[in-house]
Protein backbone atom coordinates (compact mmCIF):
# COMPACT_ATOMS: atom_id res chain seq x y z
CA UNK A 1 0.00 0.00 0.00
CA UNK A 2 2.75 2.41 0.88
CA UNK A 3 4.52 1.81 -2.42
CA UNK A 4 1.89 3.50 -4.48
CA UNK A 5 2.44 7.23 -4.01
CA UNK A 6 4.64 8.06 -6.96
CA UNK A 7 4.81 11.72 -6.17
CA UNK A 8 6.54 11.39 -2.86
CA UNK A 9 9.80 12.85 -4.02
CA UNK A 10 11.58 14.93 -1.42
CA UNK A 11 10.98 18.55 -2.21
CA UNK A 12 14.65 19.49 -2.51
CA UNK A 13 15.58 16.91 -5.12
CA UNK A 14 12.47 17.18 -7.22
CA UNK A 15 13.33 18.28 -10.76
CA UNK A 16 11.49 21.25 -12.05
CA UNK A 17 9.81 19.63 -15.02
CA UNK A 18 8.32 16.40 -13.76
CA UNK A 19 6.04 14.23 -15.80
CA UNK A 20 3.01 14.95 -13.69
CA UNK A 21 2.70 18.25 -12.02
CA UNK A 22 0.56 18.11 -8.90
CA UNK A 23 -3.02 18.51 -10.10
CA UNK A 24 -3.89 20.97 -7.42
CA UNK A 25 -1.04 23.10 -8.60
CA UNK A 26 -0.62 26.77 -7.79
CA UNK A 27 2.40 25.92 -5.70
CA UNK A 28 4.38 29.03 -5.19
CA UNK A 29 7.91 28.70 -6.52
CA UNK A 30 10.25 27.16 -4.00
CA UNK A 31 7.46 25.52 -2.03
CA UNK A 32 7.03 22.19 -3.75
CA UNK A 33 4.51 20.00 -2.03
CA UNK A 34 5.14 16.51 -0.76
CA UNK A 35 1.43 16.27 -0.08
CA UNK A 36 -0.13 16.16 -3.48
CA UNK A 37 -3.58 14.93 -4.19
CA UNK A 38 -2.25 11.56 -5.25
CA UNK A 39 -0.05 10.83 -2.32
CA UNK A 40 -2.31 12.33 0.28
CA UNK A 41 -4.86 9.52 0.69
CA UNK A 42 -2.11 6.99 1.31
CA UNK A 43 -0.51 9.17 3.91
CA UNK A 44 -3.87 9.77 5.54
CA UNK A 45 -4.76 6.11 5.93
CA UNK A 46 -1.26 5.00 6.86
CA UNK A 47 -1.74 5.18 10.65
CA UNK A 48 -5.07 3.40 10.41
CA UNK A 49 -3.68 0.68 8.13
CA UNK A 50 -0.66 0.14 10.35
CA UNK A 51 -2.80 -0.16 13.46
CA UNK A 52 -5.30 -2.33 11.66
CA UNK A 53 -2.63 -4.72 10.45
CA UNK A 54 -0.96 -4.96 13.85
CA UNK A 55 -3.91 -5.03 16.20
CA UNK A 56 -6.78 -6.45 14.17
CA UNK A 57 -5.74 -8.41 11.09
CA UNK A 58 -2.66 -10.08 12.53
CA UNK A 59 -4.30 -11.09 15.84
CA UNK A 60 -7.32 -12.54 14.08
CA UNK A 61 -5.13 -14.75 11.91
CA UNK A 62 -2.62 -15.54 14.65
CA UNK A 63 -5.41 -16.49 17.02
CA UNK A 64 -6.60 -19.12 14.60
CA UNK A 65 -3.11 -20.51 14.27
CA UNK A 66 -2.67 -20.62 18.04
CA UNK A 67 -5.98 -22.44 18.37
CA UNK A 68 -4.45 -25.28 16.36
CA UNK A 69 -1.56 -25.74 18.77
CA UNK A 70 -1.06 -27.02 22.28
CA UNK A 71 1.61 -26.49 24.89
CA UNK A 72 3.33 -23.43 26.18
CA UNK A 73 5.95 -21.00 24.93
CA UNK A 74 8.74 -22.76 23.07
CA UNK A 75 7.09 -26.14 23.62
CA UNK A 76 4.12 -25.17 21.47
CA UNK A 77 3.18 -27.89 19.04
CA UNK A 78 0.82 -28.19 16.15
CA UNK A 79 -2.13 -30.27 17.23
CA UNK A 80 -4.67 -29.91 14.46
CA UNK A 81 -8.20 -29.74 15.74
CA UNK A 82 -7.40 -31.24 19.14
CA UNK A 83 -8.46 -28.08 20.97
CA UNK A 84 -11.77 -27.98 19.16
CA UNK A 85 -12.41 -31.65 19.93
CA UNK A 86 -11.59 -31.00 23.55
CA UNK A 87 -14.00 -28.10 23.52
CA UNK A 88 -16.88 -30.23 22.33
CA UNK A 89 -16.33 -32.67 25.18
CA UNK A 90 -15.69 -30.06 27.85
CA UNK A 91 -18.66 -29.91 30.23
CA UNK A 92 -17.51 -26.55 31.58
CA UNK A 93 -17.62 -25.03 28.12
CA UNK A 94 -21.18 -26.20 27.71
CA UNK A 95 -22.08 -24.88 31.14
CA UNK A 96 -20.61 -21.50 30.21
CA UNK A 97 -22.43 -21.49 26.90
CA UNK A 98 -25.68 -22.44 28.57
CA UNK A 99 -25.32 -19.69 31.16
CA UNK A 100 -24.55 -17.14 28.48
CA UNK A 101 -27.47 -18.28 26.33
CA UNK A 102 -29.85 -18.19 29.28
CA UNK A 103 -28.83 -14.64 30.18
CA UNK A 104 -29.13 -13.66 26.54
CA UNK A 105 -32.62 -15.07 26.08
CA UNK A 106 -33.98 -13.48 29.24
CA UNK A 107 -32.08 -10.24 29.45
CA UNK A 108 -32.08 -8.87 25.90
CA UNK A 109 -35.86 -9.00 25.31
CA UNK A 110 -36.54 -7.69 28.82
CA UNK A 111 -34.15 -4.80 28.36
CA UNK A 112 -35.25 -3.86 24.85
CA UNK A 113 -38.93 -4.07 25.80
CA UNK A 114 -38.40 -1.77 28.75
CA UNK A 115 -36.31 0.55 26.61
CA UNK A 116 -39.07 0.83 24.05
CA UNK A 117 -41.64 1.61 26.76
CA UNK A 118 -39.41 4.29 28.25
CA UNK A 119 -38.74 5.75 24.81
CA UNK A 120 -42.47 5.94 24.09
CA UNK A 121 -42.94 7.73 27.39
CA UNK A 122 -40.10 10.13 26.73
CA UNK A 123 -41.54 10.86 23.30
CA UNK A 124 -44.99 11.70 24.62
CA UNK A 125 -45.84 15.34 25.18
CA UNK A 126 -48.17 14.30 27.97
CA UNK A 127 -45.18 13.97 30.25
CA UNK A 128 -43.71 16.70 32.41
CA UNK A 129 -39.96 17.27 32.75
CA UNK A 130 -38.94 14.98 29.92
CA UNK A 131 -35.30 16.19 29.63
CA UNK A 132 -34.72 15.32 33.28
CA UNK A 133 -35.99 11.75 32.94
CA UNK A 134 -34.01 11.27 29.77
CA UNK A 135 -30.84 12.41 31.47
CA UNK A 136 -31.47 10.07 34.39
CA UNK A 137 -32.14 6.90 32.44
CA UNK A 138 -29.08 7.50 30.28
CA UNK A 139 -26.74 7.92 33.25
CA UNK A 140 -26.18 4.25 34.12
CA UNK A 141 -24.74 3.54 30.67
CA UNK A 142 -21.95 6.00 31.37
CA UNK A 143 -20.60 4.01 34.29
CA UNK A 144 -17.86 1.52 33.77
CA UNK A 145 -18.69 -2.12 34.20
CA UNK A 146 -16.34 -2.52 37.11
CA UNK A 147 -17.68 0.47 38.97
CA UNK A 148 -21.22 -0.77 38.40
CA UNK A 149 -20.23 -4.27 39.46
CA UNK A 150 -18.64 -3.10 42.68
CA UNK A 151 -21.60 -0.92 43.50
CA UNK A 152 -24.07 -3.71 42.98
CA UNK A 153 -22.03 -6.27 44.86
CA UNK A 154 -22.85 -4.23 47.96
CA UNK A 155 -26.41 -3.27 46.99
CA UNK A 156 -27.15 -6.98 46.47
CA UNK A 157 -25.51 -8.06 49.71
CA UNK A 158 -27.53 -10.69 51.52
CA UNK A 159 -27.44 -9.40 55.09
CA UNK A 160 -27.44 -5.65 54.73
CA UNK A 161 -27.85 -4.81 51.05
CA UNK A 162 -30.04 -1.94 49.96
CA UNK A 163 -32.19 -4.13 47.71
CA UNK A 164 -32.99 -6.66 50.41
CA UNK A 165 -33.83 -3.81 52.75
CA UNK A 166 -36.22 -2.30 50.18
CA UNK A 167 -37.82 -5.70 49.69
CA UNK A 168 -38.18 -6.10 53.44
CA UNK A 169 -40.30 -2.95 53.50
CA UNK A 170 -42.80 -4.93 51.43
CA UNK A 171 -42.49 -7.93 53.69
CA UNK A 172 -40.32 -9.96 51.32
CA UNK A 173 -37.70 -12.20 52.90
CA UNK A 174 -34.03 -11.62 52.23
CA UNK A 175 -32.86 -13.00 48.90
CA UNK A 176 -29.42 -14.51 48.56
CA UNK A 177 -28.71 -12.62 45.33
CA UNK A 178 -25.07 -13.54 44.87
CA UNK A 179 -24.92 -16.76 46.88
CA UNK A 180 -27.45 -19.03 45.26
CA UNK A 181 -26.94 -20.26 41.68
CA UNK A 182 -30.32 -19.27 40.30
CA UNK A 183 -30.54 -15.92 42.07
CA UNK A 184 -27.02 -15.06 40.95
CA UNK A 185 -28.20 -15.32 37.37
CA UNK A 186 -31.16 -13.11 38.17
CA UNK A 187 -28.76 -10.64 39.74
CA UNK A 188 -26.63 -10.52 36.60
CA UNK A 189 -29.73 -9.93 34.50
CA UNK A 190 -30.86 -7.14 36.84
CA UNK A 191 -27.52 -5.36 36.75
CA UNK A 192 -27.20 -5.64 32.98
CA UNK A 193 -30.71 -4.30 32.56
CA UNK A 194 -30.00 -1.39 34.88
CA UNK A 195 -26.84 -0.63 32.98
CA UNK A 196 -28.02 -0.62 29.36
CA UNK A 197 -31.77 -0.01 29.22
CA UNK A 198 -31.44 3.77 29.14
CA UNK A 199 -28.89 3.66 26.35
CA UNK A 200 -31.26 1.68 24.16
CA UNK A 201 -34.17 3.88 25.18
CA UNK A 202 -32.34 6.97 23.94
CA UNK A 203 -31.60 5.23 20.64
CA UNK A 204 -35.29 4.36 20.26
CA UNK A 205 -36.27 7.88 21.19
CA UNK A 206 -34.10 9.15 18.37
CA UNK A 207 -35.83 6.76 16.03
CA UNK A 208 -39.28 7.80 17.23
CA UNK A 209 -38.53 11.44 16.61
CA UNK A 210 -37.56 10.64 13.06
CA UNK A 211 -40.92 9.11 12.22
CA UNK A 212 -42.80 11.56 9.96
CA UNK A 213 -45.76 12.93 11.85
CA UNK A 214 -47.91 12.85 8.71
CA UNK A 215 -48.02 9.08 8.95
CA UNK A 216 -49.72 9.30 12.32
CA UNK A 217 -52.04 12.01 11.13
CA UNK A 218 -53.11 9.96 8.15
CA UNK A 219 -53.65 6.89 10.30
CA UNK A 220 -55.66 8.93 12.76
CA UNK A 221 -57.88 10.18 9.96
CA UNK A 222 -58.37 6.61 8.80
CA UNK A 223 -59.55 5.75 12.29
CA UNK A 224 -56.60 3.72 13.55
CA UNK A 225 -56.39 3.44 17.33
CA UNK A 226 -53.20 3.87 19.38
CA UNK A 227 -52.31 0.17 19.33
CA UNK A 228 -52.92 -0.10 15.62
CA UNK A 229 -50.77 2.99 15.02
CA UNK A 230 -47.98 1.51 17.14
CA UNK A 231 -48.00 -1.83 15.32
CA UNK A 232 -48.49 -0.48 11.81
CA UNK A 233 -46.41 2.67 11.93
CA UNK A 234 -44.06 2.90 14.89
CA UNK A 235 -42.63 -0.62 14.80
CA UNK A 236 -41.94 -0.76 11.04
CA UNK A 237 -40.42 2.72 11.10
CA UNK A 238 -38.17 1.73 13.98
CA UNK A 239 -37.00 -1.46 12.33
CA UNK A 240 -33.45 -0.31 11.43
CA UNK A 241 -32.81 0.85 14.97
CA UNK A 242 -34.50 -2.20 16.48
CA UNK A 243 -32.23 -4.38 14.39
CA UNK A 244 -29.17 -2.44 15.45
CA UNK A 245 -29.98 -2.69 19.14
CA UNK A 246 -30.80 -6.39 18.91
CA UNK A 247 -27.54 -7.18 17.15
CA UNK A 248 -25.43 -4.98 19.43
CA UNK A 249 -27.05 -6.36 22.57
CA UNK A 250 -26.54 -9.90 21.37
CA UNK A 251 -22.88 -9.35 20.59
CA UNK A 252 -22.43 -7.63 23.93
CA UNK A 253 -24.16 -10.31 25.96
CA UNK A 254 -22.34 -13.16 24.26
CA UNK A 255 -19.08 -11.49 25.23
CA UNK A 256 -20.21 -10.87 28.78
CA UNK A 257 -17.25 -10.79 31.12
CA UNK A 258 -16.85 -7.84 33.45
CA UNK A 259 -20.08 -8.05 35.37
CA UNK A 260 -19.89 -11.70 36.47
CA UNK A 261 -16.16 -11.28 37.01
CA UNK A 262 -16.71 -8.52 39.52
CA UNK A 263 -20.04 -9.62 40.97
CA UNK A 264 -19.81 -13.36 41.34
CA UNK A 265 -16.47 -14.48 39.94
CA UNK A 266 -18.42 -16.98 37.85
CA UNK A 267 -19.89 -18.70 40.87
CA UNK A 268 -21.70 -19.95 42.78
CA UNK A 269 -21.16 -23.41 41.39
CA UNK A 270 -20.29 -21.98 37.94
CA UNK A 271 -23.83 -20.71 37.53
CA UNK A 272 -22.63 -17.38 36.12
CA UNK A 273 -19.53 -18.58 34.32
CA UNK A 274 -19.67 -17.09 30.82
CA UNK A 275 -17.79 -18.15 27.70
CA UNK A 276 -15.54 -15.09 27.74
CA UNK A 277 -14.80 -15.65 31.40
CA UNK A 278 -13.90 -19.27 30.76
CA UNK A 279 -11.70 -18.08 27.90
CA UNK A 280 -10.02 -15.62 30.24
CA UNK A 281 -9.44 -18.28 32.88
CA UNK A 282 -7.90 -20.68 30.38
CA UNK A 283 -5.74 -18.06 28.72
CA UNK A 284 -4.61 -15.87 31.56
CA UNK A 285 -4.91 -18.06 34.64
CA UNK A 286 -3.84 -21.45 33.26
CA UNK A 287 -1.91 -19.96 30.30
CA UNK A 288 -3.39 -22.50 27.93
CA UNK A 289 -3.38 -20.16 24.94
CA UNK A 290 -4.27 -22.86 22.42
CA UNK A 291 -7.46 -23.85 24.17
CA UNK A 292 -8.39 -20.25 24.94
CA UNK A 293 -8.01 -19.35 21.26
CA UNK A 294 -10.21 -22.24 20.25
CA UNK A 295 -12.82 -20.90 22.67
CA UNK A 296 -12.46 -17.44 21.14
CA UNK A 297 -13.07 -18.82 17.67
CA UNK A 298 -16.04 -20.85 18.82
CA UNK A 299 -17.45 -17.66 20.30
CA UNK A 300 -16.74 -15.66 17.15
CA UNK A 301 -18.54 -18.31 15.13
CA UNK A 302 -21.58 -18.20 17.41
CA UNK A 303 -21.67 -14.40 17.34
CA UNK A 304 -21.49 -14.22 13.55
CA UNK A 305 -24.11 -16.90 13.01
CA UNK A 306 -26.52 -15.24 15.41
CA UNK A 307 -25.80 -11.83 13.90
CA UNK A 308 -26.52 -13.03 10.39
CA UNK A 309 -29.68 -14.79 11.53
CA UNK A 310 -30.94 -11.65 13.19
CA UNK A 311 -30.23 -9.49 10.18
CA UNK A 312 -32.11 -12.00 8.05
CA UNK A 313 -35.07 -12.16 10.39
CA UNK A 314 -35.52 -8.53 11.27
CA UNK A 315 -33.64 -6.80 8.52
CA UNK A 316 -35.08 -7.69 5.16
CA UNK A 317 -38.70 -8.42 5.71
CA UNK A 318 -40.50 -6.71 2.94
Amino acid sequence: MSLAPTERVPAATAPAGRRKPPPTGRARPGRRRVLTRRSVPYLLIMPAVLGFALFKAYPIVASFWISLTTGNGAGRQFAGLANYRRLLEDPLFWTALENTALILVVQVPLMLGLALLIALGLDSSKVWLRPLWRLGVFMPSLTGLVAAGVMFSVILNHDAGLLNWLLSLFGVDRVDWLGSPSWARVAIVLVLTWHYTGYNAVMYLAGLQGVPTELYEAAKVDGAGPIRRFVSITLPQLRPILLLTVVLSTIGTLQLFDEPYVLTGGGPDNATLTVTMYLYNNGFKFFDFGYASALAYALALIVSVLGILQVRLIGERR
Partner: protein
Amino acid sequence: MKPLRTTTSATQTGTGTPGVTKPDATTPDVATPYVIRSVRKRRSPLLTLMLAGAFGLCVGPFYWLAIAATQDDKDIFSWPPKLLPGGHLMENLRGLEESIGLTRVLFNSVLVAGVQTFGAVVVSVLAGYAFAKFEFRGRNLLFVLLLSTLVIPDTVMLIPIFQMMMDIGLIDSYQSVVLPGLVTPFGIFLMRQALRSMPDELLDAARVDGAGELRVLWRIVVPVNRPVIAALALFVFLGAWNQFVWPLIALRSPEMYTLPVAMATLNGLSTTNYAHVLLASAIAAIPVMVLFLFLQRQFISGLLAGATKE
Protein backbone atom coordinates in the same frame (compact mmCIF):
# COMPACT_ATOMS: atom_id res chain seq x y z
CA MET B 1 -40.86 24.33 9.87
CA LYS B 2 -40.06 21.16 8.03
CA PRO B 3 -39.31 18.36 10.42
CA LEU B 4 -35.93 16.74 10.05
CA ARG B 5 -36.25 13.28 8.69
CA THR B 6 -32.80 11.90 9.03
CA THR B 7 -33.81 8.67 10.64
CA THR B 8 -36.66 7.55 8.44
CA SER B 9 -34.81 5.53 5.84
CA ALA B 10 -31.80 5.08 7.93
CA THR B 11 -28.96 4.33 5.58
CA GLN B 12 -29.26 6.72 2.71
CA THR B 13 -30.63 9.95 4.02
CA GLY B 14 -28.98 10.23 7.37
CA THR B 15 -25.49 10.94 6.18
CA GLY B 16 -25.41 14.67 6.54
CA THR B 17 -23.57 16.63 9.14
CA PRO B 18 -26.71 18.70 9.67
CA GLY B 19 -28.52 15.58 10.80
CA VAL B 20 -25.75 14.95 13.26
CA THR B 21 -25.43 18.43 14.58
CA LYS B 22 -29.11 19.05 15.06
CA PRO B 23 -30.06 16.37 17.49
CA ASP B 24 -33.82 16.31 17.69
CA ALA B 25 -33.48 14.26 20.81
CA THR B 26 -31.73 16.82 22.94
CA THR B 27 -34.08 19.68 22.41
CA PRO B 28 -37.61 19.30 23.66
CA ASP B 29 -39.56 18.74 20.50
CA VAL B 30 -42.04 21.56 20.90
CA ALA B 31 -41.56 22.48 17.28
CA THR B 32 -42.93 19.24 15.87
CA PRO B 33 -45.75 17.94 18.00
CA TYR B 34 -48.00 15.33 16.51
CA VAL B 35 -51.31 16.74 15.48
CA ILE B 36 -52.98 14.56 18.07
CA ARG B 37 -50.94 16.30 20.71
CA SER B 38 -51.56 19.83 19.58
CA VAL B 39 -55.30 19.27 19.56
CA ARG B 40 -55.54 18.30 23.19
CA LYS B 41 -52.50 19.04 25.25
CA ARG B 42 -53.48 17.05 28.27
CA ARG B 43 -50.70 16.06 30.57
CA SER B 44 -50.76 12.64 32.11
CA PRO B 45 -49.62 12.44 35.74
CA LEU B 46 -49.62 8.65 35.54
CA LEU B 47 -47.21 8.55 32.62
CA THR B 48 -45.00 11.14 34.29
CA LEU B 49 -45.01 9.11 37.47
CA MET B 50 -43.95 5.98 35.61
CA LEU B 51 -41.03 7.77 34.01
CA ALA B 52 -40.09 9.24 37.35
CA GLY B 53 -40.08 5.67 38.65
CA ALA B 54 -37.70 4.58 35.90
CA PHE B 55 -35.59 7.62 36.70
CA GLY B 56 -35.49 6.63 40.36
CA LEU B 57 -34.43 3.08 39.58
CA CYS B 58 -31.64 4.36 37.35
CA VAL B 59 -30.37 7.17 39.53
CA GLY B 60 -31.09 5.69 42.96
CA PRO B 61 -27.95 3.54 43.01
CA PHE B 62 -25.85 6.63 42.27
CA TYR B 63 -27.36 8.44 45.22
CA TRP B 64 -26.65 5.46 47.42
CA LEU B 65 -23.10 5.27 46.05
CA ALA B 66 -22.46 8.91 46.93
CA ILE B 67 -23.77 8.26 50.45
CA ALA B 68 -21.78 5.07 50.89
CA ALA B 69 -18.56 6.78 49.87
CA THR B 70 -18.80 9.01 52.92
CA GLN B 71 -19.34 6.22 55.42
CA ASP B 72 -17.10 3.66 57.02
CA ASP B 73 -17.32 -0.04 56.46
CA LYS B 74 -19.56 -0.65 59.47
CA ASP B 75 -22.14 1.92 58.42
CA ILE B 76 -22.35 0.59 54.89
CA PHE B 77 -23.48 -2.76 56.19
CA SER B 78 -25.79 -1.49 58.88
CA TRP B 79 -29.43 -2.52 58.92
CA PRO B 80 -31.46 -0.54 57.99
CA PRO B 81 -29.03 1.03 55.51
CA LYS B 82 -28.01 4.61 56.23
CA LEU B 83 -29.44 6.93 53.63
CA LEU B 84 -27.79 10.16 54.73
CA PRO B 85 -24.14 11.15 54.26
CA GLY B 86 -21.65 10.11 56.93
CA GLY B 87 -18.47 11.87 57.94
CA HIS B 88 -15.79 9.52 56.70
CA LEU B 89 -15.04 10.90 53.25
CA MET B 90 -11.56 12.20 54.05
CA GLU B 91 -10.69 9.08 55.96
CA ASN B 92 -11.76 6.92 53.01
CA LEU B 93 -9.73 9.05 50.62
CA ARG B 94 -6.65 8.57 52.80
CA GLY B 95 -7.31 4.84 53.00
CA LEU B 96 -7.63 4.63 49.23
CA GLU B 97 -4.37 6.51 48.80
CA GLU B 98 -2.66 4.00 51.06
CA SER B 99 -4.14 0.86 49.54
CA ILE B 100 -4.04 1.55 45.80
CA GLY B 101 -2.13 4.82 45.54
CA LEU B 102 -5.15 6.79 44.40
CA THR B 103 -3.23 9.76 42.98
CA ARG B 104 -0.97 7.59 40.87
CA VAL B 105 -3.83 5.41 39.67
CA LEU B 106 -5.90 8.46 38.74
CA PHE B 107 -2.93 9.91 36.92
CA ASN B 108 -2.54 6.65 34.98
CA SER B 109 -6.20 6.62 34.06
CA VAL B 110 -6.23 10.23 32.90
CA LEU B 111 -3.04 9.77 30.92
CA VAL B 112 -4.08 6.54 29.25
CA ALA B 113 -7.62 7.69 28.45
CA GLY B 114 -6.42 11.11 27.28
CA VAL B 115 -3.70 9.83 24.98
CA GLN B 116 -5.88 7.07 23.62
CA THR B 117 -8.70 9.50 22.90
CA PHE B 118 -6.44 11.98 21.18
CA GLY B 119 -4.72 9.29 19.12
CA ALA B 120 -7.87 7.48 18.11
CA VAL B 121 -9.56 10.71 17.06
CA VAL B 122 -6.56 11.76 14.95
CA VAL B 123 -6.36 8.34 13.29
CA SER B 124 -10.11 8.31 12.66
CA VAL B 125 -10.25 11.81 11.20
CA LEU B 126 -7.31 11.17 8.88
CA ALA B 127 -8.59 7.83 7.67
CA GLY B 128 -12.20 8.98 7.52
CA TYR B 129 -11.16 11.92 5.37
CA ALA B 130 -9.23 9.63 3.01
CA PHE B 131 -12.12 7.19 2.71
CA ALA B 132 -14.66 9.96 2.21
CA LYS B 133 -12.91 12.33 -0.15
CA PHE B 134 -10.23 10.51 -2.13
CA GLU B 135 -10.14 7.83 -4.77
CA PHE B 136 -7.31 5.39 -4.30
CA ARG B 137 -6.56 1.80 -5.10
CA GLY B 138 -7.85 -0.66 -2.54
CA ARG B 139 -10.10 1.86 -0.88
CA ASN B 140 -13.29 -0.16 -0.86
CA LEU B 141 -11.62 -3.45 0.02
CA LEU B 142 -9.81 -1.84 2.90
CA PHE B 143 -12.94 -0.18 4.18
CA VAL B 144 -14.95 -3.40 4.10
CA LEU B 145 -12.14 -5.28 5.87
CA LEU B 146 -12.02 -2.62 8.53
CA LEU B 147 -15.77 -2.71 9.12
CA SER B 148 -15.97 -6.49 9.18
CA THR B 149 -13.79 -6.57 12.28
CA LEU B 150 -16.69 -4.94 14.11
CA VAL B 151 -18.44 -8.31 14.35
CA ILE B 152 -15.40 -10.20 15.60
CA PRO B 153 -15.30 -10.31 19.40
CA ASP B 154 -12.38 -8.45 20.90
CA THR B 155 -11.55 -11.49 22.97
CA VAL B 156 -10.30 -13.22 19.81
CA MET B 157 -7.51 -10.67 19.65
CA LEU B 158 -6.48 -10.68 23.30
CA ILE B 159 -4.00 -13.53 23.22
CA PRO B 160 -2.00 -12.63 20.09
CA ILE B 161 -1.82 -8.99 21.16
CA PHE B 162 -0.69 -10.11 24.60
CA GLN B 163 2.04 -12.28 23.06
CA MET B 164 3.08 -9.50 20.73
CA MET B 165 3.39 -7.09 23.64
CA MET B 166 5.37 -9.67 25.59
CA ASP B 167 7.75 -10.20 22.68
CA ILE B 168 8.51 -6.52 22.25
CA GLY B 169 8.71 -6.01 25.99
CA LEU B 170 5.83 -3.58 26.30
CA ILE B 171 3.80 -5.49 28.86
CA ASP B 172 3.20 -3.38 31.95
CA SER B 173 3.67 -0.11 30.08
CA TYR B 174 1.32 2.71 29.14
CA GLN B 175 1.96 1.98 25.48
CA SER B 176 0.63 -1.55 25.81
CA VAL B 177 -2.73 -0.21 27.01
CA VAL B 178 -3.02 2.66 24.54
CA LEU B 179 -1.74 1.22 21.26
CA PRO B 180 -4.40 -1.39 20.50
CA GLY B 181 -7.12 1.19 21.09
CA LEU B 182 -5.89 3.65 18.48
CA VAL B 183 -7.65 2.06 15.54
CA THR B 184 -11.39 2.15 16.07
CA PRO B 185 -13.38 0.90 13.08
CA PHE B 186 -16.44 2.65 14.49
CA GLY B 187 -14.59 5.97 14.65
CA ILE B 188 -13.30 5.70 11.10
CA PHE B 189 -16.76 4.75 9.92
CA LEU B 190 -18.36 7.65 11.77
CA MET B 191 -15.90 10.19 10.39
CA ARG B 192 -16.23 8.87 6.87
CA GLN B 193 -20.00 9.18 6.99
CA ALA B 194 -19.79 12.71 8.33
CA LEU B 195 -17.11 13.92 5.94
CA ARG B 196 -18.81 12.46 2.89
CA SER B 197 -21.52 15.06 3.13
CA MET B 198 -19.02 17.94 2.95
CA PRO B 199 -19.33 19.68 -0.39
CA ASP B 200 -16.27 19.08 -2.58
CA GLU B 201 -16.48 22.67 -3.79
CA LEU B 202 -15.55 23.87 -0.35
CA LEU B 203 -12.37 21.82 -0.38
CA ASP B 204 -11.53 22.69 -3.97
CA ALA B 205 -12.00 26.38 -3.36
CA ALA B 206 -9.39 26.22 -0.64
CA ARG B 207 -7.05 24.25 -2.89
CA VAL B 208 -7.42 26.76 -5.70
CA ASP B 209 -6.54 29.46 -3.23
CA GLY B 210 -3.28 27.65 -2.74
CA ALA B 211 -3.88 25.74 0.45
CA GLY B 212 -1.95 22.50 0.83
CA GLU B 213 -3.76 19.31 1.72
CA LEU B 214 -2.83 19.49 5.37
CA ARG B 215 -4.05 23.03 5.53
CA VAL B 216 -7.37 22.06 3.93
CA LEU B 217 -7.75 19.33 6.52
CA TRP B 218 -6.85 21.48 9.49
CA ARG B 219 -8.49 24.73 8.47
CA ILE B 220 -11.64 23.49 6.76
CA VAL B 221 -12.45 19.85 7.40
CA VAL B 222 -11.79 19.85 11.13
CA PRO B 223 -13.59 23.11 12.04
CA VAL B 224 -16.64 22.31 9.93
CA ASN B 225 -16.99 18.91 11.55
CA ARG B 226 -16.19 19.88 15.09
CA PRO B 227 -19.48 18.56 16.55
CA VAL B 228 -19.00 15.07 15.13
CA ILE B 229 -15.39 15.05 16.21
CA ALA B 230 -16.43 16.07 19.71
CA ALA B 231 -19.00 13.28 19.82
CA LEU B 232 -16.41 10.77 18.67
CA ALA B 233 -13.92 12.01 21.25
CA LEU B 234 -16.51 11.56 23.98
CA PHE B 235 -17.25 8.02 22.95
CA VAL B 236 -13.63 7.03 22.71
CA PHE B 237 -12.91 8.64 26.08
CA LEU B 238 -15.82 6.83 27.69
CA GLY B 239 -14.54 3.51 26.37
CA ALA B 240 -10.92 4.22 27.28
CA TRP B 241 -11.73 5.45 30.77
CA ASN B 242 -13.83 2.40 31.58
CA GLN B 243 -11.89 -0.29 29.74
CA PHE B 244 -11.05 -3.19 31.94
CA VAL B 245 -10.14 -6.56 30.43
CA TRP B 246 -7.18 -5.49 28.35
CA PRO B 247 -5.52 -3.29 31.01
CA LEU B 248 -6.12 -6.09 33.50
CA ILE B 249 -4.10 -8.39 31.27
CA ALA B 250 -1.50 -5.91 30.08
CA LEU B 251 -0.65 -4.24 33.38
CA ARG B 252 1.27 -6.07 36.07
CA SER B 253 2.53 -3.70 38.71
CA PRO B 254 0.06 -1.89 40.97
CA GLU B 255 1.64 1.49 40.28
CA MET B 256 0.73 1.08 36.60
CA TYR B 257 -2.89 0.12 37.21
CA THR B 258 -5.72 2.20 35.87
CA LEU B 259 -8.66 2.94 38.13
CA PRO B 260 -10.92 0.05 37.02
CA VAL B 261 -8.09 -2.46 37.38
CA ALA B 262 -7.11 -1.13 40.80
CA MET B 263 -10.73 -1.21 41.84
CA ALA B 264 -11.15 -4.81 40.77
CA THR B 265 -8.02 -5.97 42.61
CA LEU B 266 -9.13 -4.11 45.70
CA ASN B 267 -12.50 -5.80 45.47
CA GLY B 268 -10.92 -9.23 45.19
CA LEU B 269 -9.04 -9.04 48.48
CA SER B 270 -10.45 -11.11 51.30
CA THR B 271 -10.34 -8.10 53.59
CA THR B 272 -12.12 -5.80 51.19
CA ASN B 273 -12.85 -2.44 52.67
CA TYR B 274 -16.06 -1.67 50.85
CA ALA B 275 -16.09 1.97 51.83
CA HIS B 276 -12.84 2.34 49.90
CA VAL B 277 -13.95 0.42 46.83
CA LEU B 278 -17.21 2.31 46.68
CA LEU B 279 -15.45 5.64 46.95
CA ALA B 280 -13.19 4.51 44.10
CA SER B 281 -16.19 3.72 41.90
CA ALA B 282 -17.73 7.06 42.76
CA ILE B 283 -14.48 8.75 41.74
CA ALA B 284 -14.43 6.76 38.51
CA ALA B 285 -17.94 7.92 37.70
CA ILE B 286 -17.37 11.63 38.33
CA PRO B 287 -15.37 12.68 35.23
CA VAL B 288 -17.74 10.90 32.87
CA MET B 289 -20.80 12.39 34.50
CA VAL B 290 -19.35 15.90 34.38
CA LEU B 291 -18.35 15.50 30.74
CA PHE B 292 -21.78 14.20 29.92
CA LEU B 293 -23.59 17.01 31.69
CA PHE B 294 -21.62 19.60 29.78
CA LEU B 295 -21.64 17.87 26.44
CA GLN B 296 -25.01 16.12 26.46
CA ARG B 297 -25.88 17.46 23.06
CA GLN B 298 -22.76 16.08 21.38
CA PHE B 299 -23.06 12.83 23.25
CA ILE B 300 -26.53 12.07 22.09
CA SER B 301 -25.92 13.24 18.54
CA GLY B 302 -22.95 10.89 18.40
CA LEU B 303 -25.13 8.08 19.63
CA LEU B 304 -27.68 8.88 16.96
CA ALA B 305 -25.09 9.15 14.25
CA GLY B 306 -24.08 5.60 15.00
CA ALA B 307 -27.62 4.44 15.36
CA THR B 308 -29.03 5.75 12.15
CA LYS B 309 -26.11 5.14 9.90
CA GLU B 310 -24.91 1.67 10.64
